[in-house]
């Protein structure tokens, strides 16, 4: 499939625009010198991802992503940032001094994974795009075939909730002395 063929499809244009946006904002998430900005860039990334999900006809997941992530998690993050009084604004010390290694490693990882993706699924067409997955199917699937993992996840969530409260409670501070042997 040539580039012109690919470009002749309108959804691909949409994907291109959204994908570049996602990639760009994701890049800013990990490079921004401002904690709040980083969090907001993550919002953009996630929003882009939601659009992508819509393109891939996964509406339900897309809305879950928007609601849970953008609605809850990011808010949590912002709270965390506020509470830890991370400097809101430019802060050069947000990165450590091993960015080079990190860049090389992640670059290599990226090359490897994209090579693998292209090599194995290079021209795999995506069928049925735009048809949409019925929420009913998802519901049946989750509460039918996957009910057990679902229950476990709910437990994990509960445990995380309780754990988070326990850990962050003010009076549950660890012993003052760390003189242990």
């Amino acid at each position: 499939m040539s580039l012109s063929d690919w470009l002749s499809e309108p959804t691909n244009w949409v994907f291109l625009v959204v994908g570049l946006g996602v990639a760009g904002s994701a890049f800013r998430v990990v490079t921004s010198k401002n904690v709040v900005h980083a969090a907001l860039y993550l919002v953009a990334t996630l929003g882009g991802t939601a659009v992508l999900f819509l393109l891939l006809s996964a509406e339900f997941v897309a809305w879950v992503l928007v609601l849970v992530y953008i609605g809850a998690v990011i808010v949590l993050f912002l709270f965390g940032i506020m509470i830890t009084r991370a400097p809101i604004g430019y802060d050069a010390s947000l990165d450590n001094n091993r960015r080079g290694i990190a860049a090389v490693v992640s670059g290599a990882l990226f090359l490897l994974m994209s090579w693998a993706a292209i090599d194995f699924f290079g021209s795999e067409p995506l069928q049925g795009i735009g048809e949409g997955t019925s929420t009913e199917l998802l519901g049946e699937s989750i509460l039918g075939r996957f009910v057990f993992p679902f229950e476990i996840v709910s437990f994990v969530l509960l445990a995380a909730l309780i754990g988070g409260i326990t850990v962050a409670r003010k009076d549950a501070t660890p012993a003052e002395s760390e003189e242990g042997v």
Partner: protein
Amino acid sequence: MTLAPVLVLAALLFSLGVYGLLARRNAVLVLLAIELMLNAVNINLVAFEAMLQDSLATGQVFAIFVITVAAAEVGIGLAIVLLIFRNRATANVDEFSLMKW
């Protein structure tokens, strides 16, 4: 629309996540990077689901699970960061050193 570009995008997000994980000092930012990586996984799941057209929509189901777990992880992770910050007045990963022998 083909699969490969989506996968490449996911790989890019994952790699950026790894970069953030390795290069960031602030614990909150490290958590953000982890979110990026999880998100890349989600994209993969959904994309493969779109390719395979599974009758159970397994990919999407698992994407939802991942989102749930990610939420849990963020919750507990931030709680820890908070706690450490309260005791140590820093959220920098390389200054966490709670135990001495």
